[in-house]
């Protein structure tokens, strides 16, 4: 078999695990302000891990696509350090805060520009807007077989075989490639990348291509912003926490008493 071409769609977002105290909401500008470094959205890291595992079994080339108003290549170069072969940034003012349909349209345009593909992997949902749509819409636009919520992905003679999560177990499904698969966290964490490897990739001379809306030839009417009418802070979840004091034994005793009272 010739080299398998895998595309991984990875979005750059502010760290979704930032402590609550570093997140605020601008109700006028309709923005969530996160005082945290940019990262790759976690499920997209799972998708990349799935791709790298396939590459360990089969001859494969992994291309990472990341779209945004401005994408940091320092953040995204991590994908190269982890085992991706190519990284393409899709950057344009017009790509800011796109809705799911438009994001998928722009990604589809980029994918059509590539030299063919067999498998497209996306995360199940991005950690900034928690939408969970771009992957499946992209699959529909490209008229591909779509498989959602993968927990394991294997390649078998021109087909992709996926264990897809169900509420009470899983389903093993199979589709001819090219196909699109959305990836869930059961696939496993992105492998550990050593500091040296990471630094080498970040400081490396390798230039990362960047395509804009003109390069992709997506018409302006396909680039719609998310239609946000209002944005607010959630209700306060805080409670008064009573901390147990004393030796381990005393703390255990106090906690046991709490259970007794609740029983």
């Amino acid at each position, binding site marked *: 078999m010739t080299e398998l071409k895998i595309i991984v769609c990875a979005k750059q977002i502010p760290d979704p695990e930032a402590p609550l105290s570093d997140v605020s909401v601008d109700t006028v500008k309709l923005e969530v302000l996160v005082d945290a470094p940019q990262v790759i959205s976690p499920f997209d890291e799972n998708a990349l891990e799935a791709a790298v595992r396939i590459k360990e079994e089969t001859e494969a080339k992994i291309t990472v696509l990341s779209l945004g108003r401005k994408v940091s290549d320092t953040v995204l170069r991590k994908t190269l350090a982890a085992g991706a072969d190519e990284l393409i940034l899709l950057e344009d003012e017009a790509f800011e805060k796109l809705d799911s349909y438009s994001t998928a349209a722009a990604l589809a345009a980029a994918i059509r520009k590539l030299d063919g593909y067999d498998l497209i992997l996306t995360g199940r949902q991005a950690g900034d807007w928690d939408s969970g749509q771009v992957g499946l819409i992209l699959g529909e636009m490209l008229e591909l077989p779509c498989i959602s919520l993968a927990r394991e992905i294997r390649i078998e003679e021109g087909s992709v075989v996926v264990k897809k999560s169900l509420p009470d177990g899983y389903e093993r*499904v199979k589709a001819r490639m090219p196909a699109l698969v959305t990836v869930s966290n059961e696939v496993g964490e992105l492998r550990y990348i050593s500091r040296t490897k990471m630094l080498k990739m970040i400081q490396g001379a390798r230039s990362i291509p960047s395509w804009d809306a003109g390069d992709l030839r997506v018409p302006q009417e396909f680039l719609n912003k998310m239609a*946000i009418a209002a944005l607010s802070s959630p209700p306060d979840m805080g409670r008064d926490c009573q901390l147990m004091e004393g030796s381990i034994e005393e703390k255990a005793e106090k906690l046991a008493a709490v259970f007794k009272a609740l029983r």
Partner: protein
Amino acid sequence: MNDVLILGKVKEEALDPRTLELLSAGKRLAGGKGGGFSLLLMGDEVSAQADEAASHGPDKVYKLEHSLLRGFKPDLWLAALEQACRQINPRILLMSHDFVGMELGPRLACRLHTRLTTDCIALSIDSESGLLLRTKPVSGGNAISVFKCPGEPQMATVRAKVFDPSEPGAAKGEIVEIRPKIDESMIKVESLEVVREDVVALDKAEVVVAGGAGLGEADGFELLEELAEALRKSFSNVMIGCSRVAVDKGWISSDHQVGLTGTMISPDIYIAVGISGAIQHLVGMTHSKKIIAINTDPACNMFKVADYGIIEDYEEIIPALIEKLEEVS
């Protein structure tokens, strides 16, 4: 007049509780606009459930039956649903944010060239534009956003348990049959096997002992199980929960995961062991009646939402706690 259409679902031979919640959401939306609401049921045999649904007062219950629709086969269900939508032509289409809605929603929205908002917790109609206002937690739950999108049908998937289930009444809706044109050639993704696993019904738990990355290793869950066992002497339905990181690390299966992309629960007691309290975890458990946090980091988020806290290494405190619980009982 078909204002609001609800995609219902059958579970264990009856209407899924989620469908009853959608029925009350749909009823309220339609009522506010003086329009009607209808229900669509798909499957190989849904007549009994269609009759059941008729008593919840929809204008119509659309019954879409086909032998190929036995079990959820996304490609066929999508094709049939698309045909039904083109025929019924609803202004608003609601589905549950479950494995069916999460898959069909985005794909159908693309085919119908409209916009979907997922995982909504409130819905209303904008009086000016007549558009659906779709309220949805974003950024894990750090913010609540209201979306107002153009296009028809106005589509949303709805989070479980945010609407009270509808009660059957006297009004009887008309049952209308829809015949889908589907065949096996539409299947692009072939099902090889469905494997049912013993999964924990976390939403039925009274007490949840949950572990996270702080356990450091899979064996940590054995200690949590010992704690659960000790608690079973005083409480019923004590179950093990976990954070996403524990699943990612392969320590425990994902049916135990609590949170945004796991199960959202509100047990009587939630014990968070070695879980930092990221927002995506918190949204799944902060409605618990009592929250107990065990963590080595005094600054962690979990203490901010807990009623009781112990700053201690779990490997030290849990064995001591088990001992005390045995003494008390």
